[in-house]
């Protein structure tokens, strides 16, 4: 069984002022993910190694870290696909590090909360005390569905060059989510979100580096969402954007009188 070398950036604020690299040699088996190897290190070699994980299947976003210089999910990255016997792992950049591979994601969540990532409607009674569904067609769903796959892992924020230069920048994830909600036909908060992202370190600080879309593990394409949102805002400024009301409630179709000569349908079998 061959060995793989893991070079991990460690940081313990109570003990050391600066981060340092620590090397671990572990036996490698095909089919193991980076997260599996980290678990092995923690269990068999060094129990002090800290990292986040949860679902281990690429849906929670907890284990995002810098693997071979690229932001990835550790649970979703097969060691084999890295094609190297030396794997370098570091915490996500553009965030403060709490310990070892654990970044402080609270600034990202604060920015996310800032853009109001929920359905905004005037008819609060229906939102809070639901009686019926809101009607949304398949086409309307497809307008924003791709952007709703975001798992808030922070990989896009870590990869963004503007985030590296300006920590006040809102970032790809909140901006993509603001577009997601603006294009949800159930939502009526577009104008408010336009004002929220129209700030000095807001949406117009994006320079189309597109690294966010390269690293996104769920195929969200935040760069596309940001450019579509910019277009929406410019059109709104030029008064070219069609005003849209939030979609209404789903109503059952009323019985219609059958025309003469048309037979009744057969009884349903399902």
């Amino acid at each position, binding site marked *: 069984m061959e060995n793989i070398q893991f070079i991990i950036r460690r940081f313990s604020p109570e003990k050391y002022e600066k981060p340092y690299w620590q090397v671990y040699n572990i036996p490698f088996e095909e089919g193991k993910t980076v997260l599996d190897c980290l678990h092995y290190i923690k269990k068999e070699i060094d129990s002090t190694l800290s990292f986040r994980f949860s679902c281990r299947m690429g849906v929670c976003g907890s284990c995002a870290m810098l693997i071979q210089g690229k932001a990835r999910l550790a649970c979703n990255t097969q060691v084999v696909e890295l094609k190297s016997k030396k794997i370098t792992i570091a915490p996500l950049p553009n965030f403060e590090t709490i310990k070892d591979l654990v970044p402080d994601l609270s600034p990202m969540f604060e920015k996310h909360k800032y853009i109001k990532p929920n359905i905004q409607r005037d008819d609060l009674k229906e939102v809070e005390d639901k009686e019926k569904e809101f009607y949304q067609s398949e086409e309307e769903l497809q307008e924003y569905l791709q952007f709703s796959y975001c798992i808030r892992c922070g990989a896009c924020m870590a990869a963004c060059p503007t985030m590296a230069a*300006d920590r006040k920048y809102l970032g790809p994830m909140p901006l993509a989510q603001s577009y997601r909600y603006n294009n949800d036909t159930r939502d009526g908060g577009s104008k408010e979100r*336009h004002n929220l992202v*129209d700030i000095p370190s807001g*949406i*117009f600080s994006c320079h189309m580096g597109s690294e966010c879309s390269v690293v996104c593990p769920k195929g969200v394409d935040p760069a596309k969402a940001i450019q579509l949102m910019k277009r929406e805002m*410019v059109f*709104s*400024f030029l008064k070219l954007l069609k005003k849209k009301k939030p979609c209404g409630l789903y109503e059952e179709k009323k019985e219609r009188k059958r025309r003469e000569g048309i037979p009744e349908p057969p009884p349903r079998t399902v």
Partner: protein
Amino acid sequence: MKDTKLWSLHLFAGIVILFLLGLHMAIMHLDEIVSLFNPKGEEAISWENVLERMKMIGFVFVYIFLLGFALYHSFYGLNKIIGETNVKEGTRKFWSYVLTIFGFLLFIIGTYAAIAAKVVSAKF
């Protein structure tokens, strides 16, 4: 919608510069090929050709527009770059005011030069 307006104008300025700078390039640097607005032949920067262009009121507007849009496009870009270098809010605002004032001053000086050239050219 303040940043939206500024950014939209930045884009529009870029498009305007594309055409006006293209015109400048054709007149000044492709003079031997297209000989555009160089009625006296020879070099584009010869006194006779410069004088002929300054007599045309259209050129005064071309220079003023090119100056204005180029100054706006460049200073907005510079302001954005400074703002993205993690400076404090006060420092960002300070540079924003400095660049705005400096830009206006350069625009006034350049506009004066273009109009003065038109006035002077009328004497020849």
